[in-house]
């Protein structure tokens, strides 16, 4: 560990300028804060957090739609726990549940499928939020529901994919990223090759990283070495889990059920081809079509800075709501709610500097 830190120190001197490295994945953000490794980095190496927390980048109008759904008679909304506390325009799933709405926390899409079988008179809507990591499991649930001709299961889909979002970030001149710490879990599914275009087109080095503190430090070392040597390649620090081409079976399942679509990212806006929509063939499991869901324009607190935080251009500490009134107990923006949100990480682990 000491050698790693020393290498990072030496390499950062060789690079000889301030370096901005983005960890795209929320789990990396949390690992970096929880292990305290940020304090071990030289002052000229800046870790910025990217849009890799799925809850955080979900458009608020999606939450309003989910909140509307859970109050409809005959509907049960099934969701991962992270989403229940995220505020929509004027409520949250947690508050609606307290007021009597049907909101169930599940730990996997297949639990939602089981729920649908147990409650044949209800329409069970699973909130499909997440990246390539979770998409295959949702694809499987839809595929299985289709095979079994289940009529009361559907998905409100807001799934997103990583590469296009990273592309949009690179093109955003306000950010100036020198290197990407690429998401390990996403890469298990997709393979490390999906980041190649970033190196080739923009000359920005990428390292796929594991989630232990030493994984992240090693990845930082690899990135700095590439910068010092003037290289821009995809390197795979997480080769114990990630291969070049990923999990072919999971990719086939994803492609069977989903197709690319344009989608809005909170804080970044519409990114062409960065979302996943349920294919026409599986339209009977698309909550938007089955239940006629509308996405009215949502209202968010204009002072909330989550958008800039998600693009890596602002620190949570720059936000005037940070800490008071926005805190994990009373979150205003999504980055304060999610277990992987950047604001929550700052609040929980580094408030002392604030």
């Amino acid at each position, binding site marked *: 560990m000491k050698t790693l830190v020393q290498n990072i120190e030496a390499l950062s001197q060789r690079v000889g300028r301030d370096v901005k490295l983005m960890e795209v994945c929320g789990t990396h953000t949390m690992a970096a804060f929880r292990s*305290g490794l940020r304090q071990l980095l030289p002052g000229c190496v800046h870790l910025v957090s990217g849009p890799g927390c799925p809850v955080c980048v979900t458009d608020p109008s999606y939450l309003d739609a989910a909140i509307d759904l859970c109050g409809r008679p005959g509907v049960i909304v099934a969701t991962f726990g992270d989403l229940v506390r995220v505020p929509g325009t004027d409520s949250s799933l*947690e508050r609606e549940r307290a007021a009597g709405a049907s909101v169930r926390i599940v730990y996997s899409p297949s639990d939602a499928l089981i729920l649908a079988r147990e409650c044949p008179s209800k329409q069970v809507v699973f909130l499909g939020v997440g990246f390539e990591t979770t998409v295959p499991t949702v694809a499987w649930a839809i595929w299985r529901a289709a095979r079994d001709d289940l009529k009361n299961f559907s998905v409100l889909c807001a799934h997103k994919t990583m590469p296009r979002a990273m592309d949009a970030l690179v093109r955003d001149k306000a950010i100036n990223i020198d290197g990407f710490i690429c998401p390990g879990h996403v890469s298990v599914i997709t393979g490390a090759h999906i980041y190649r275009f970033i190196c080739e087109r923009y000359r920005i080095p990428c390292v796929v990283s594991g989630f232990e503190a030493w994984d992240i430090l090693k990845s930082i070392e690899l990135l700095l070495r590439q910068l010092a040597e003037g290289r821009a390649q995809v390197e795979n620090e997480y080769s114990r889990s990630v291969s070049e081409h990923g999990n072919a079976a999971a990719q086939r399942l994803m492609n069977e059920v989903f197709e690319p679509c344009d989608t809005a990212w909170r804080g970044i806006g519409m990114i062409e081809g960065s979302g996943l929509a349920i294919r026409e063939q599986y339209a009977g499991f698309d909550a938007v079509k089955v239940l006629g869901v509308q996405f009215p324009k949502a209202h968010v607190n204009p002072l909330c800075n989550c958008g800039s935080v998600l693009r890596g251009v602002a620190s949570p500490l720059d936000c005037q709501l940070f800490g008071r009134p926005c805190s994990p107990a009373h979150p205003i923006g999504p980055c304060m709610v999610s277990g992987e949100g950047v604001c929550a990480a700052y609040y929980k682990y580094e408030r002392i500097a604030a």
Partner: protein
Amino acid sequence: MRRDRILLAHGGGGSLTRELIEGSFLTQLGNPLLKPLDDSAMLVMGGKGYAFTTDSYVVKPYVFPGGDIGRLAVCGTTNDLAVMGAQPLWLSLSFILEEGLLLADLQKIVESIRTTVAETGVQIVTGDTKVVERGKCEGLYINTAGLGRLVTPDRLGAANVKPGDAVIINGWIGEHGVAVMSRREGVAFQTSIVSDCAPLWPLVKTILNTGAQIRAMRDPTRGGVAAALCDIARASNVGIRLHEEVLPISREVRGACDLLGLDPLTIANEGKVLVFCRATDVARALAAMKEHPLGREARVIGEVSEKPRGMVLLRTVIGGERIIDMPTGEDLPRIC
């Protein structure tokens, strides 16, 4: 935003619970005996000191690996007395039963209460029974209140901790919460972890008998070690530093927590005690603890400093430092 209803998170033992207690209860019902918000109230009757406490048990499922709601109801309440330095003497026992509960299930729980009471040396001296319609509670809920006699002339309490004190824990962290979650519908996973649910009074008595200067004790239940330490840091206006490399967290608990996206430090324990001890007395307190079956894994996990006041910090294995925060409430599983 509307904030006009009770949320599940208000019951999580974290910052929302505290807000509810301070905002809704203390403002109207506060008095000098209630105000310290310790595990028990400290009473004086006939020149003698007593500790008085109450707790309700709604655990789901009501039988879990390593225990059940009956054992929990006796341990939880007597432990709240023990950590104030009081020998548990008398308990009340109130049942809220759901229509349709199997009598055989109830009998098993009563048996479990009987054996736990015997381990603790406490007597059940009064009780109550209510039955509610099917669906109005899940099987059964139990409330117990307990009265204990203070055995130490030193007053223990969350506000008495001083810079320089050592923080000791008697064993593995997070087992109760993980054991219960492993059997919960929708989460169920295979694990050999069993609840640590145990009466702490025999261990506490051993510690007090050494004559070591003990400032405070806490049983880190809901909200886990994190919530208990945050409470104490705040009440005593001191800083507390833990060392990650010595924290007794098993691979299994760590693995289950990673899977569920939870922090072992926020997971409930039911047979653990955090002991704040004067630094010069640590050796004898620790030696006595290690002699006891519930204290074999006892160790110092941190120390108290003057600053940062009211905060708990963790020195991480790689040499960084981070805050250990008061958990907010209901712990949420992660999404990816």
